[in-house]
């Protein structure tokens, strides 16, 4: 019996194929816009990562020693690696830097989840100083999801700066429990704390409104501006909402001004993505200019990470038709040339060198394909569920 470590998973068969095709679509979409594939090491030095992560997150790091006796953790976050790479490999003139990646991340699972290894796809845009980056990355992400057949993903937008601005005026003894309650999505605890702190009526009313500011982007922005004025975070969100609307992506957008993400390095607009039946998000991201500052770099930084396996489980491919192509005694050169013709017309072929045609048909059935191809006769046949094939 061959066991593998608890909390890890082998992705093979149909699932492996779907994950790979999702990865490919993401890479193709983002690399067409100048995002360069990025492969970070599997280990992160603890001395570099420790102070960048909040205490709750640190508890989830999986620590190991490298063969050089350096204290490390298995890669828990790709953003740190990307920022570190930018700071050490690119001069200011070469910025902004666009990166995309796919690979496993390792964090101790929070029950009821059990996997500590998760495949993630993500992209980072680092060092830009003007407008447009948030829209670019969100629009490309939504386009990728559409290409994967996920037609109604919902991007929920919030703003880390909005929450900091609202809560920052309060004493830390008040703001910390309120922020913690929002972060843990314990809204009843948030309201109980608000009642306990006996704040000024106006302040209490404003703070009490935050967890209710959720839903249609335009109407929530209008409500928020009535309550909080034209603050800088709300202006940021307005620009993003407007631009995504112009791109025809408004239907995919919701606003949640109570949205807070676990990692403290987020400083501007943040987002999470929901689709399908899962109760939790497929992933999310946002702006983390502050983290860039810690590395001595001026400018914006933003990125996102998506659970590749969760995305793959929702994806629908309507593109190439998988088929077994029976070579029927043809020479390898001729068989490959004819297979190329079928590939060019939209098939994805798996060559069968078996002598008997029936063996090739059986292989197609075993694979669950709808098609088999007779390369000698240059004909594709659809396999009927009745077991008979026809042209």
């Amino acid at each position, binding site marked *: 019996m061959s066991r593998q470590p608890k909390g890890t998973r082998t992705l093979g068969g149909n699932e492996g194929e779907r994950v790979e095709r999702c990865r490919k679509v993401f890479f193709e979409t983002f690399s067409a816009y100048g995002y360069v594939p990025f492969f970070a090491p599997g280990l992160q030095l603890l001395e570099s990562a420790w102070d960048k992560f909040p205490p709750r997150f640190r508890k989830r790091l999986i620590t190991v020693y490298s063969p050089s006796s350096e204290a490390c953790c298995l890669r828990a976050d790709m953003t740190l690696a990307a920022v570190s790479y930018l700071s050490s490999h690119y001069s200011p003139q070469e910025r902004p830097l666009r990166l995309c990646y796919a690979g496993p991340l390792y964090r101790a699972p929070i029950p009821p989840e059990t996997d500590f290894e998760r495949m993630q796809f993500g992209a980072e845009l680092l060092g830009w100083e003007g407008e447009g980056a948030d829209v670019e990355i969100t629009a490309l992400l939504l386009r990728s999801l559409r290409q994967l057949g996920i037609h109604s993903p919902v991007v*929920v937008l919030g703003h880390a700066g909005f929450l900091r601005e609202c809560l920052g005026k309060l004493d830390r003894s008040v703001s910390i429990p309120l922020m913690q309650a929002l972060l843990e999505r314990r809204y*009843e605890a948030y309201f109980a704390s608000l009642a306990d702190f006996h704040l000024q009526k106006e302040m209490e009313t404003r703070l009490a409104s935050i967890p209710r500011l959720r839903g249609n982007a335009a109407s929530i922005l209008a409500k928020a501006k009535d309550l909080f004025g034209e603050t800088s975070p709300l202006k940021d969100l307005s620009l993003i909402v407007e631009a995504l609307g112009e791109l025809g992506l408004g239907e995919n957008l*919701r606003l949640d001004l109570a949205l807070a993400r676990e990692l403290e390095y987020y400083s501007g607009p943040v987002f999470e993505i929901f689709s399908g039946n899962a109760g939790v998000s497929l992933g999310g991201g946002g702006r983390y200019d502050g983290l860039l500052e810690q590395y001595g770099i001026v400018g914006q930084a933003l990125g996102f990470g998506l659970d590749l396996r969760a995305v793959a489980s929702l994806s629908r491919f309507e593109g190439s038709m998988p088929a077994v192509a029976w070579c029927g005694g043809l020479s390898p050169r001729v068989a490959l040339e004819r297979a190329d013709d079928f590939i060019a017309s939209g098939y994805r072929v798996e060559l069968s060198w078996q002598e008997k045609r029936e063996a090739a048909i059986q292989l197609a059935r075993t694979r669950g394909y709808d098609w088999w191809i007779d390369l000698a006769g240059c004909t594709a046949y659809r396999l009927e569920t009745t077991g008979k094939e026809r042209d």
Partner: protein
Amino acid sequence: MFTLCLPTGRVLDEAVEVLQELDIPTTKLKERGRSLVVQEEGFRFLLAKPMDVPVYVHYGIADMALAGSDVIWETGASLVELVDTGRGSCRIVLAGPRKIANRFLGHESQVMGLRVATKYPRIAEEYFADRGIQVEFVHLHGSIEMAPRLGLSDCIVDIVQTGSTLKANALSVIAEIAPVSLKFVSSRKSLQLAWDAIEEIIGKFSTSSKKAGEKNGEAI
């Protein structure tokens, strides 16, 4: 159609009362017989063991649920706690016989290595780990109170309502760990995708608690 998960057992009656106060239809729920899935008007009710309720919400099977704060903590499920109904009130406590309780009054070294019986291993582990106390846990699924009496453990971490079961087993409360009550929760996805409907329901919580003149924690 909204899917609402409810805990079976003692707390189900209170959960149904909460639903009635919110004008959510409960006729078929009350006449369910042995059915675990009941559908009425725009709602589908799932009846699950209390400890499983947050898990159904976490994985998106249920949009909303009424779940005890003890099981929300114990399962670690990622969900949104919207309203404290104030129902099903009890406490999670550390309890033990008098001689063990006295040891907790002294230095941590006096309680190192104790054996603790509980059906809440995660909560118990967090409680002792936060205090730097190393203990041994025995995970039981019920009748926790008899464990110290029979020598299976030195003390217990369990929920207590009136304290009469503790008293009957010669146990007393050593420390309060957390208050417990029935909470109205939703999945993180449903919070975003079905917010209008959820907001309507939690608006009714405010109305019903005002009607009752109670202060069960403000509804969102």
